[in-house]
């Protein structure tokens, strides 16, 4: 059913490495970068108010992922509490 010539493990490793470089690159930009602390007044929060900037912007996808990985891995949780359990074999 699933036939893949691409080695997904290599792909995930390289993508993660790349994203780390991107993140560290962003935090050293001369403009201050992603983690440059600044005082944010209430009227400067228009970007943070956007749906895509929320901590859980896609709850249905997040809950699906949580359940898939809950049933296939031993580690779970972390994001918060709540939600029911499942037998999940």
């Amino acid at each position, binding site marked *: *059913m699933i036939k893949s010539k691409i080695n997904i493990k290599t792909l995930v490793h390289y993508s993660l490495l790349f994203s780390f470089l991107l993140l560290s690159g962003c935090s050293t930009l001369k403009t201050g970068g992603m983690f440059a602390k600044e005082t944010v007044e209430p009227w400067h929060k228009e970007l*943070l108010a956007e749906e895509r900037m929320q901590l859980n912007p896609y709850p249905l996808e997040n809950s699906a992922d949580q359940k898939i990985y809950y049933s296939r891995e031993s580690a779970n949780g*972390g994001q918060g509490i709540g939600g029911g359990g499942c037998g999940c074999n």
Partner: protein
Amino acid sequence: MQLKDKKLKSYPSKPSVRSALIMATCTVLSGSLSPASAEEEDDSTLSRIDLSTLYYSEEDRVSVNTTHVVVENDLGDEEFVRANFIYDTITGASPNGRIIPADQGSGGSIPFTSASGFTLNVNDVGSAGQKWLTEFTDKRAAIDLSWEKPITRTLRRIFEGNFSSENDFTSYGGAATMVWDLNQRNTTVTGGLSVLKETVSPDSGTPLELAIANCNDTAPALPVWANCNITSPRFGNGHKRVFDGVIGVTQVINKRTITQLNYSHGVSLGYLTDPYKLISVVDNNLDGEEVLILYEKRPDRRARNSLYWKTVSQLSPKKVVDFSYRYFWDDWGIKSHTIDYKYRYDYAPKSYLQPHIRYNTQSSADFFHNAIDAAVNELPRYASADYRLDKLQTYSIGLKYGKELGKSGAFAMRAEYIVQNYNAVSLPDMKALVYQGTFSFKF
């Protein structure tokens, strides 16, 4: 002239007029950003419905269809009620913990007789005589209701109740969360507690842990401690209670970045064993042939911890990254690292693409054994061959396409490809595909 007779009051301390005006203007403009006032209607209450359909399919193993509906109603004054309805249908074969013979083709030919005679018959083989798989089908329906209400201007509480039912499993519970905004809402402290009560109820009852499920009739010798002539007792339902607590801080770093750090601690108590999982006893004098099958046994207590860090940042108006890392450890000896990275690219004002990658690695549980050596004098106190307690890695890669439909609708679809590989168990890599479509509508 009349005009000059009137004494015109002068402006209060002149240089302050502009700064006061700046403040007043900002109040209007920042206040007007709340979604309620951006709506055309004066009515500030808003309802929302979210629909999702998901298809999950593992190669040669389990497939799941999930329908998920969320209805949210804004009662005004920051008060919300939400209802989640989930329905799953599950079919396929799941690894049961038995070893996989090196020569898989002959795996089905070893004659086993059932010592139990119960409906859970381990001779119910998986496809093509694969005895290490158990075929099953199940349905799950779940409902989750929550109610969010402000207590003061900076304090909110969220109460939640949930119930979920499968053919052989029920779970119900509740949760309470407090959210406290500080520092002009730039810092948010969250604390929450939850309780779940879960019951596993196999048709044939739960087996005695580490009791014999089957004996290999053709084995020349059985371990001295094994008595194949008695029938293992079975019990009623297995009960467990699950307690979780979380404490977290969310911080606005700058206009484009928000970060969150959570610590969670949880304790599960009761029957934590999986009544469908088995463990093989192998005789190394017989080339590791399976001579017995036991039911697995897990400790009746598990304490879990996790540290979770998440950051969402807007790199440019079109690019948003969402990064999270979790470190998990428990007293079963499992340690796990999980990294999740999403990159949303809004290539047009209402359309976006979002690649996703995730990596998870975990160590094995202390009581994980791929199989038990028949030569041991005494059985271990706990033993499980569940592949999920083995050292394993999971790799996921996905792509999502999202589109806003007018002012109040949104649509998204995504595909994910997941590969999982194991250390001790000789299962082939698990390969799974996930397709999900979501639709949301505000009214």
